[in-house]
């Protein structure tokens, strides 16, 4: 499944050479939505930012979760630090499936020159329950659709989201 996703993403990348936006998952343009969650044409979660700056709930929620769980290593606004890479750059080439895989299982890059270790967050509900939120926020940063700001306006928290969140956070 993951391989197929990756291949699809690579093909999109190649095909989407002429579009304004292209990140690791291809063209981020939202083509449909379900309960306040937006998807691109490959069914990857994506952001939706209106001309007045209103962001979808997932982008807003992802901003908050990122700055709680991720920024102590990866720096503010996905900009990176002396300690860990800038995720706004990583997502320019990394697809959704890879992102989920690394966040859930972690990653090690240890050599004589560096000791970078990303922990596995699969068992951490504060991250695992908000995987798509964080992805959508960072995807918006990777595509320069959102600047280094706290989103000022956002869509309402969808009722279905609240239900899913409660069950995800509650079961742990």
């Amino acid at each position: 499944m993951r391989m197929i996703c990756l291949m699809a993403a690579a093909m999109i990348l190649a095909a989407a050479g002429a579009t304004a936006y292209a990140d690791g998952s291809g063209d981020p343009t939202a083509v449909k939505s379900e309960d306040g969650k937006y998807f691109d044409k490959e069914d990857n979660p994506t952001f939706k930012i209106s001309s007045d700056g209103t962001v979808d709930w997932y982008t807003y929620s992802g901003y908050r979760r990122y700055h709680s769980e991720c920024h102590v290593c990866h720096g503010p606004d996905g900009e990176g630090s002396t300690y860990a890479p800038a995720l706004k750059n990583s997502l320019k080439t990394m697809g959704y499936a890879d992102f989920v895989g690394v966040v859930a299982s972690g990653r090690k890059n240890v050599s004589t020159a560096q000791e970078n270790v990303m922990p596995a967050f699969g068992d951490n509900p504060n991250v695992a329950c908000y995987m798509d939120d964080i992805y959508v926020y960072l995807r918006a940063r990777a595509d320069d659709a959102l600047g280094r700001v706290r989103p000022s306006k956002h869509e309402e928290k969808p009722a279905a989201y609240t239900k899913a969140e409660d069950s995800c956070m509650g079961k742990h």
Partner: protein
Amino acid sequence: MRKVLLASCLGSVAALAAGSASANDELVKMSQNPKDWVMPAGDYANTRYSKLNQINASNVGKLQVAWTFSTGVLRGHEGGPLIIGNMMYVHTPFPNKVYALDLSQDNKIVWKYEPKQDPNVIPVMCCDTVNRGLSYGDGKVFLHQADDKLVALDAKTGNLVWSATNGDPAKGQTGTSAPFVIKDKVLVGTSGGEFGVQCSMTAYDIKDGKQVWKAYSEGPDNQILFDDKTTALGKPTGKDSSIKTWEGDQWKIGGGCTWGWVSYDPQLNLVYYGSGNPSTWNPKQRPGDNKWSMTIFARNPDNGVARWVYQMTPHDEWDYDGVNEMILSDQQINGQARKLVTHFDRNGLGYTLDRETGELLVAEKYDPKVNWTSGVDMNKSSPTYGRPKVLDQYSTDKQGEDHNVKGICPAALGTKDEQPAAYSPDTQLFYVPTNHVCMDYEPFKVSYTAGQPYVGATLSMYPPPGETNMGNFIAWDGKTGKIVWSNKEQFSVWSGALATAGDVVFYGTLEGYLKAVDAKTGKELYKFKTPSGIIGNVTTYENNGRQYVAVLSGVGGWAGIGLAAGLTDPTAGLGAVGGYAALSNYTALGGTLTVFALPQ
């Protein structure tokens, strides 16, 4: 005037030593020899003051680099080397290498120690893989490894003498602090406040590494080692003083970590240190005062029992850890000679207390921008005596979960973090490296998983509105609680200061400058750009008749994470990027020790 002060200072040092017949005389004596630097802060009082004066205000402008040493490690380099006779001991961040250099043999590496540690400890360290240095005693060098092991190395050979497991990284317990040797014990704290660790200070036998006592920051009285004589602000704390202030058994994941510095008064036989933030950062989730997080502890080093405590920030709402150094000085207040402890807290208040009784004497803002409190209640008959008055508009608890509280000063990294201040008995001033940064803070609900981050707040940081400097280096009068002079710095000053009898004060900057300033006026007398940003502490020593000044550079730590990409200006509105300088435009990674001296 200066002579008189010096004489009285020497007198008090002698008095300290005289009253310590039972203390580790070796270290008391060694710390009085200004040629050496035998413990992290130079002396038990944590003054970071040296009597050496070959380098002084009139010649420091001629300072030159004498030699350099690459540590071979890239991460943030906090702390500084120890110097004992001809030997210098240099530590590094993870993987926590230790080098023993022979200063009489052109700084040849006599031995090197590198522990084998599971790299899985790296991401459990909240903010870079820093280590704040070594300690010495009984012919051994002590290292607190990232994996929360305390090891004793033979100072001559580097051979492992013993190793003690202080905590479990799988539960978020890690080691970043410098050990501290008192008499026949080695004290060591714990990091893990962002992982819901119940933190403690632990004493090990210097001979074999056996645990002697362990004192938790929160929990039942037999875990926090309080007895019926333990006082807070002059009154007995009473039974269950900690667990009464937590809901249910939240104290078991309560934080209160002890990753800062330790000081010791041999005459009073009391050890001083502070505890960190209560876990989580979401105050709504942990009602109560959360004692004894954010607390100054004075304990008996023989058995760990607390003599007195003072909680600076009850029910923390901003991550203002209370771990910063406790500097011991003997000064006159209102014509009376007092034994004092002075502490510059993350919360932006500079505290001076009587170190024998824990009486609160001074609590004043050491950055005028500090705004979360209108001040500490100093009225002894008031029911809120000793508590800071919190302004509702900056209370993240009052504003509640999912509410973004704006414009809180200081930011979570505090008006000062772990970077230790210095005290000069000549000028009777404290020299304080500070952060000048504010924040927005939004708490929200989180759930606890052992060994995983337990944070629960989103925050963004920026310089105080209308200002562009993110740091100041100040001189502070601890008797009155007033700033005497203040130098602006572009970035937070994240380097430990050094005061000397040469009327010169040294500190490093995040761009990488080692700076020397006049102790009386703050006037800059010398600067030199080292290979990387400085978050290490400045040290001085004498070898073969020559005075040296040494500092580790190697940017990183909290500063490297928060400032690497630069801070944004939230008031500039949508689309404003890079409103403030990015540290990454000034410096890059790499650990180097740079040693300075006057030309011969």
